[in-house]
C-alpha cells in the first residue's frame, strides 16, 4: 500500500490535526477562565465598574473560545477507540483511568458551572455567581492535570506491569502515575505556558484599543493584568521548561539528542542555533552552535557528556532488537527551536512592555497618567517615546499576541514527534497501535470530515472573535449593577426579559 496513505500515517495525521487544533483553544480557555475570574473578583470586592466591564468583555471572548475547546475535546475522548483500538486494548487498564477521572471530576465541573455562569447573571447573588467562574477555572486546571498524567505515562510509563497472558499493560500504582516527576513538571510547564497565551492575548487586544484611544479605562487595567501575567508566566514557563528538559534527558535521551540534532555524543555538548542535517548520513552539513549549553540544559553542568542520536540508536537496538529508533530529526530539531523562540520572544516583549508602562516606580511625576489617559510609554527617565515609536510598540504587541500559542503548538509537536517510533516509550510502538479493522477509506473519510469541518469553524470563530474584540467592552445596564440577592432571582422580576439568552 502507498505509504503516504497507509492507515498508520493517516491515523497519525488525523491525531495531529485534531489534537493541535483542539489545543489552540485549550491554553486560552485555561488562562482566560482564571483571568476573567480574577477580574470579576476585583469587581465584587471593589464595586469599581471598570472591572465588571472588563469581566464582561474578556468573559465573552472566553466563551467564544471555550465553545470550540469543548466540542473539539469530544473527539479526543473517542479517537483512541476509533483509530487506535490496539493501543486502547493494550493501555486501557492504565490510560483509561485518568481519562475517566477527567470526565467525572473535571469536565462535569467545568461544563455545569459554565452554564450557571453564562445564564446566572440575573439568577444568582453576586458572590455565588463569582464562585461559578472560579469553579470553571478549577475544572479546567483539574482537567489539564488528569490529561497530562495520562500523556506523561506515554512519555515515561510507571506504576504498571505487563500481563503477558492478556497481552496488555496493567495498573499497579495509580498514585505513581499521577505524581511521577514527568507528570508534575509537564503540568507545571503546560499551565504556565497557557497563562503566557492568555496574558499575551490580553496585552495584544488592549494594545489594539489603546492605540486608538478607545475604552481606555478598561483597557489600561487589562493591559496591566496582561503584562504582569506574561512576565510571571514567561519566567515560570522557562523555569519549568528547563526542569522538564532535564527530566526528558534522563527518561528519553533520544528526544533530547534529536532536539539538538546532536548525532555523535560529546562532552560539553553545544546548543545549536541552526543546523541542516542529512538524516541518511547521520551528520549535519551546516551548524551554528554555542558550546556547552546543551550539556547545561540536560545536566546543569557545561561539561558533562551528552549521548548523540547514533549512540542512542545503537543502544536501543541492543535493548529492543533491530529497528530504527530515531524520530524525525528535522521536525524535532525545529519544533524545539520554534517552541522556545516564539515563547521567549513573547516573554521579552512582555518584560519590555511592563517596563515601558511602569507606574510610580522609577517614573517622574510629569509622565504619570490618570485613569482615563493612555499610559505614556517611557523607555528612559524623563522622556516618553515619540508617538511613532509608541505606535510601533502597540502594533507589535497586537501582532505578536499569538506567539505563545504558536509556541504551545510546536511544543506539543515536539513532545509527541520526538517520542516516535514509540507511542508508549520503550513499551509499545506506534505502528502496533492502529485499529486493524478500520479501513483506509474510513480513516480518510473521517480525516477529511474533521479537517473540513474544523476549517469552516475556524473561519466562523475568528470572525466572531474579531467582531467582539472590535466592539470593545459593553455598556452596563441597570440589571448588571443590581444583581439579585437570592438564588433564582426575585419574584417581582418574574416577567422581565432574561439578562442573557441564546
Amino acid at each position, binding site marked *: 500500500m502507498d505509504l503516504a496513505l497507509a492507515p498508520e500515517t493517516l491515523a497519525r495525521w488525523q491525531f495531529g490535526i485534531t489534537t493541535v487544533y483542539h489545543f489552540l483553544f485549550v491554553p486560552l480557555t485555561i488562562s482566560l477562565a482564571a483571568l476573567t475570574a480574577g477580574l470579576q473578583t476585583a469587581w465584587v470586592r471593589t464595586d469599581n465598574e471598570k472591572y465588571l466591564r472588563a469581566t464582561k468583555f474578556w468573559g465573552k471572548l472566553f466563551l467564544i473560545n471555550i465553545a470550540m475547546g469543548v*466540542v473539539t475535546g469530544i473527539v479526543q475522548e473517542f479517537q483512541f*477507540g476509533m483509530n487506535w483500538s490496539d493501543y486502547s486494548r493494550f493501555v*486501557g487498564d492504565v490510560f483509561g483511568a485518568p481519562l475517566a477521572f477527567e*470526565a467525572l471530576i473535571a*469536565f462535569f465541573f467545568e461544563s455545569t458551572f459554565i*452554564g450557571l455562569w453564562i445564564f446566572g447573571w440575573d439568577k444568582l447573588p453576586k458572590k455565588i455567581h463569582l464562585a461559578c467562574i472560579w469553579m470553571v477555572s478549577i475544572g479546567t486546571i483539574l482537567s489539564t492535570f488528569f490529561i497530562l498524567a495520562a500523556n506523561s505515562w506515554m512519555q515515561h510509563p510507571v506504576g504498571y506491569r505487563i500481563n503477558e497472558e492478556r497481552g496488555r499493560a496493567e495498573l499497579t500504582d495509580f498514585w505513581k502515575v499521577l505524581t511521577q516527576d514527568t507528570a508534575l513538571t509537564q503540568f507545571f510547564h503546560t499551565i504556565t505556558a497557557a497563562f503566557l497565551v492568555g496574558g499575551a492575548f490580553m496585552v495584544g487586544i488592549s494594545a489594539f484599543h489603546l492605540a486608538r484611544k478607545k475604552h481606555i479605562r478598561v483597557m489600561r487595567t487589562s493591559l496591566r493584568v496582561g503584562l504582569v501575567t506574561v512576565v510571571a508566566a514567561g519566567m515560570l514557563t522557562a523555569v519549568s521548561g528547563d526542569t522538564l528538559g532535564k527530566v526528558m534527558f534522563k527518561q528519553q535521551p533520544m528526544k533530547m539528542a534529536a532536539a539538538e540534532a546532536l548525532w555523535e555524543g560529546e562532552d560539553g555538548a553545544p546548543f545549536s542555533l541552526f543546523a541542516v542535517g542529512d538524516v541518511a548520513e547521520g551528520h549535519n552539513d551546516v551548524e551554528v552552535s554555542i558550546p556547552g549549553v546543551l550539556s547545561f540544559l540536560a545536566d546543569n553542568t557545561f561539561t558533562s557528556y551528552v549521548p548523540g542520536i547514533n549512540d542512542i540508536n545503537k543502544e536501543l537496538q541492543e535493548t529492543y532488537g533491530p529497528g530504527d529508533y530515531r524520530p524525525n530529526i528535522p521536525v524535532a530539531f525545529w519544533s524545539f527551536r520554534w517552541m522556545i523562540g516564539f515563547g521567549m520572544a513573547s516573554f521579552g516583549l512582555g518584560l519590555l512592555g511592563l517596563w515601558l508602562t511602569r507606574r510610580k516606580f522609577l517614573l517622574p511625576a510629569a509622565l504619570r497618567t490618570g485613569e482615563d489617559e493612555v499610559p505614556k510609554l517611557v523607555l528612559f527617565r524623563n522622556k516618553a517615546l515619540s508617538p511613532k515609536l509608541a505606535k510601533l510598540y502597540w502594533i507589535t504587541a497586537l501582532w505578536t499576541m499569538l506567539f505563545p500559542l504558536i509556541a504551545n503548538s510546536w511544543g506539543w509537536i515536539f513532545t509527541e514527534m520526538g517520542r516516535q517510533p514509540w507511542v508508549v516509550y520503550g513499551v509499545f510502538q506506534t505502528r502496533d497501535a492502529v485499529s486493524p479493522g*478500520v479501513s483506509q477509506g*474510513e480513516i480518510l473519510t473521517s480525516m477529511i470530515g474533521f479537517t473540513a469541518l474544523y476549517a469552516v469553524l475556524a473561519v466562523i470563530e475568528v470572525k466572531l472573535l474579531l467582531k467582539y474584540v472590535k466592539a470593545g467592552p459593553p455598556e452596563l445596564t441597570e440589571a448588571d449593577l443590581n444583581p439579585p440577592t437570592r438564588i433564582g432571582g426575585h419574584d417581582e422580576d418574574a416577567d422581565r426579559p432574561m439578562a442573557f439568552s*441564546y
Partner: protein
Amino acid sequence: MELHDVWFVLIAVLWTGYFFLEGFDFGIGVLTKLLARDRKERRVLINTIGPVWDGNEVWLLSAGGATFAAFPEWYATLFSGFYLPLLVILLCLIVRGVAFEYRAKRPEERWQANWEHAIFWTSLIPAFLWGVAFGNIVRGVKIDADMEYVGNLWDLLNPYAILGGLVTLSLFTFHGAVFAGLKTVGDIRSRARGLAVKLGLATAVLALGFLVWTQAENGNVRSLVAMIIAVVSLVLAIGAVSAGREGWSFAFSGVTIAAAVAMLFLTLFPNVMPSSLDDAWSLTVSNASSSPYTLKIMTWCAGIATPVVLLYQGWTYWVFRKRIGTHHIADAH
C-alpha cells in the same frame, strides 16, 4: 457480585444519565421545527436547555471514559467497529455545541436561521443513531476471535437496529416535548402538551414493537420485568401529560428511559458485545474488563464523584426552575 459486574451496572447508569438528560435536549432540538412557530418560540425552546445542555453532554464523555477504563476491549471494539456512525455522531455533536453558543452572538436573521437548522439536524441524527448503535450491540454483530468487528456499515443498518433508532428518536422527542411543557409558559406550553400526547402514542407503538422483539430474541425474566416497567411508565407518562401534569409525566418518561436502558443491559449480561459469528468470541464482562486494581480505583472515583455531580447538576435545575415564555426573550436579538 464481582467488581466487573458492578462496573457493568455503572456503565448502564452512565448511559441512563446520558439518555435521560441529553434525551430531552435532543428532543428540544427536534422540536424547534416541530413545535415552535416563529423565531421567538424557537428561542424559548433553546433557552429551556441553554444552561444545562453542556453538563448533560458530559454524561456521554463519562460513559465513554469509564468504558475505556473499565472495559478497554469493549471500548476498542465498539468505537473502531461502529466507526462511521460514531463519526457522524461526533460531527453532529461538534456542530450542535457551537450552534447553541454562537447562534445569539450575531443579530442577523440568516445567521440565526442557519444555526437553528443546524440545531435541528444535529439533534435528530444522533438521537436516531444512538438507538441504531444500541440495537446492534444487543442483537450482536460480526466479531471475530480477536475481538475485531469484521462486518461493514450495511450490516449495522438492519431492520431491528433501525427500529431501535426510531424508538430513541421518538422517545427523546416525546421526552423533550414533556420537558418543554414543564419549562415554558403561555401558548407554546399548551401546544407542547398536545404534541407530547401524539408523540407519546407514536413512541408507544414503536417501543412496544422494539421491546417485544428484543424480549423474544434475547430476553430473560429480569429483562421482561424491565420491559413491563418501561411500557407501563410510558403509558403513565402519556396519561399524565394529557391531564396537564407535566411534572409527573416527565418523571415517568424518565423512568421509561431508565427501564429501557436497563432492559437492554439485562438482555446483554454477562456479555457486553455479543458476537453473531460464534458465542465463544463474544466480549463479556470478564474478558473485556480491566484488572481488579483499576476497577477498584474507578469504583472509588465513580462512587464519590457521581453523587456530587448529581447534587450540583440538580442544583442547576433548581436555579433555573422558572418557566420561560416569549415575553422573557428580549427583542434586541
